[in-house]
């Protein structure tokens, strides 16, 4: 078990390093001189001496290899440098944006787990019924709707239509921004906070909810064909008992794996949702940084996101290995 964990931790560090390196060198393939951009160039000419000074200040005058080694050394001590845009410490940008991302991801997770799993169970229990077909068709259509269109649809409904037609106040919601930023115990939103949170959380959860529902349905149906389910039925358990105690417990393993991996993705990859709802998280900031050629911010945020993704994956795999010895002995795919 210990060797397994160790091997995976080394793998995680390698992945983070690789991602950091890719993003770092991509930046230097950019056609324009970063020092010139920081100095305000691009559209208008900037004096040569200013560009030079800027380059020296940010260490951009050294060879790329030297810059890379320096940067790696700094990152190893958790120093991500300063933003090219506003001279702020990247670590403080991360500290400010990460909580919003994590909270949004957690609530999206709660929605996709509860709605997705219930729909999946319903579909599986009444296979080929109207409810099953309706769920399948809705799921297919829903997964074809772009996230940003879904976001706008919500905003139009609760932010414009509801106000124009005097709907009750609980459906008239703010459609932009974080809201009052009030959380109990760090995670439970206040009533006012909930009004700002509910829409981005639903939109962020939408795609994964569909996947969870489908996955639950498939694994439930597969599990219900197992020998031990037949045995359970033969010994006279009620259908409810069989579902709760046998089918569900075994069918949930792949679903929980998916949810774990998906959480890692949601933290950093909520870019479209964050952009549409102006939610101040990590993902939308990365895109802004990439567009503005803000290397330290871009690499710093990417590193954090990759680390979170890898770390959550690691936790999922370790818990998986804990429960299933075949995984840690490597006789079953290490995924």
């Amino acid at each position: 078990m210990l060797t397994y964990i160790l091997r995976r931790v080394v793998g995680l560090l390698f992945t983070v390093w690789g991602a950091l390196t890719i993003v770092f060198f991509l930046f230097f393939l950019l056609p324009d001189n970063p020092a010139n951009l920081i100095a305000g160039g691009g559209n208008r000419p900037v004096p040569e001496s200013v560009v030079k000074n800027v380059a020296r200040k940010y260490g951009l005058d050294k060879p790329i290899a030297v810059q890379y080694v320096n940067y790696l050394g700094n990152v190893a001590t958790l120093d991500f440098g300063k933003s090219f845009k506003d001279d702020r410490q990247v670590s403080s940008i991360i500290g400010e944006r990460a909580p919003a991302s994590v909270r949004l991801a957690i609530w999206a997770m709660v929605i996709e787990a509860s709605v997705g799993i219930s729909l999946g169970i319903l579909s599986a229990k009444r296979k080929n019924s109207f409810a099953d077909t309706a769920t399948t068709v809705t799921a297919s259509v829903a997964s074809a709707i772009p996230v940003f269109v879904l976001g706008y649809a919500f905003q139009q409904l609760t932010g414009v239509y509801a106000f124009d037609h005097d709907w009750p106040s609980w459906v008239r919601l703010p459609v932009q921004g974080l809201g009052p930023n009030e959380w109990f115990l760090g995670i439970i939103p206040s009533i006012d906070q909930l009004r700002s949170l509910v829409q981005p959380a639903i939109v962020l959860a939408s795609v994964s909810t569909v996947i969870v529902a489908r996955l639950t349905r498939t694994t439930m149906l597969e599990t219900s064909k197992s020998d031990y389910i037949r045995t359970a039925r033969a010994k006279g358990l009620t259908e409810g008992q069989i579902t709760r105690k046998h089918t569900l417990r075994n069918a949930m393993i792949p679903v929980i794996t998916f949810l774990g991996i998906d959480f890692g993705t949601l933290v950093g990859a909520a870019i479209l949702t964050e952009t549409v709802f102006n939610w101040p998280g990590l993902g939308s900031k990365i895109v802004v940084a990439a567009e503005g050629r803000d290397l330290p911010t871009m690499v710093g945020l990417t590193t954090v996101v990759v680390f979170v993704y890898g770390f959550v994956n690691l936790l999922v795999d370790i818990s998986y290995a804990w429960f299933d010895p075949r995984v840690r002995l490597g006789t079953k795919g290490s995924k």
Partner: protein
Amino acid sequence: MIDESLLELAAPSRSFRSDAWRRFRSNRLALVGMALVLLLLIAGLIGPFLVQDPLIQDRLKFKTGPDSQHWFGTDQIGRDVFARIIYGIRLSLFVGFLVTLLESLVGVTLGALAGWFGKWVDSAIMRLVDVFLAIPYFVLAVAFIAVLGRGISAVIVTLVITSWLVTARVVRASLVQAKEFDYVEAAKAIGVPTRRIITRHILPNVIQPVLVLEAIGIGSAVLAEAALSFLGVGVQEPTPSLGLMISRSKSFFSEAPGLLFFPALAIVITVLGFLLIGDGLRDALDVKEDV
């Protein structure tokens, strides 16, 4: 030795392919997908010759609703929305098919190399895939587009770079699995040449999951192009792109909801069509569902 003619009497011989096609045909949702894609292909290939110029502005009509001259109305600067959607569909299909074609060439080649040779080739390629997959998709895309410059070719290259990863993973996994099958062992044991083992016994097992993946992948590429254009880093004005149309029309939603609704509908139909075909193929070919 069994007399082969007796076997023929017992059951009419049917190839796997005709079996799969029969199963596909009997799947109603898959047929709906086929119909949707057929409709889009007609719209995208023939449509542009029939509709108005998508760039010409009608200077008397801005954000008007549907009428006999402009079926879906006009946009904020007086261009015909129907024509822009037809051209947008053509662009989406072009991006979807081209990206999928290039991406599967890269993905299948590298995945096959990794799965076939194993050892360090495998580790090197799959490590690379792992690292790329760990970087959030849009971060990678935006970074590549920053390097390549904006526009349609940058979008295509970026989508290829970001989407071959999953293909390679799937190809490698099914290849490794297929290598272990008993009948492959048996074929090796009785001295069937390697080339024949690959083409007859291994390839069919690898090709099926790839088919399913790529059918859905066309839809995903369409969705990704729309998202990049929506974020402003993809296709640029005045080229008609569905994602760009949505991003431009959001501020006029109350006055002209059609400007957002029609392009969104076109995207949904495209993605849904390929998704349903992919699902149908999965069931027909009996490919195990992967997360």
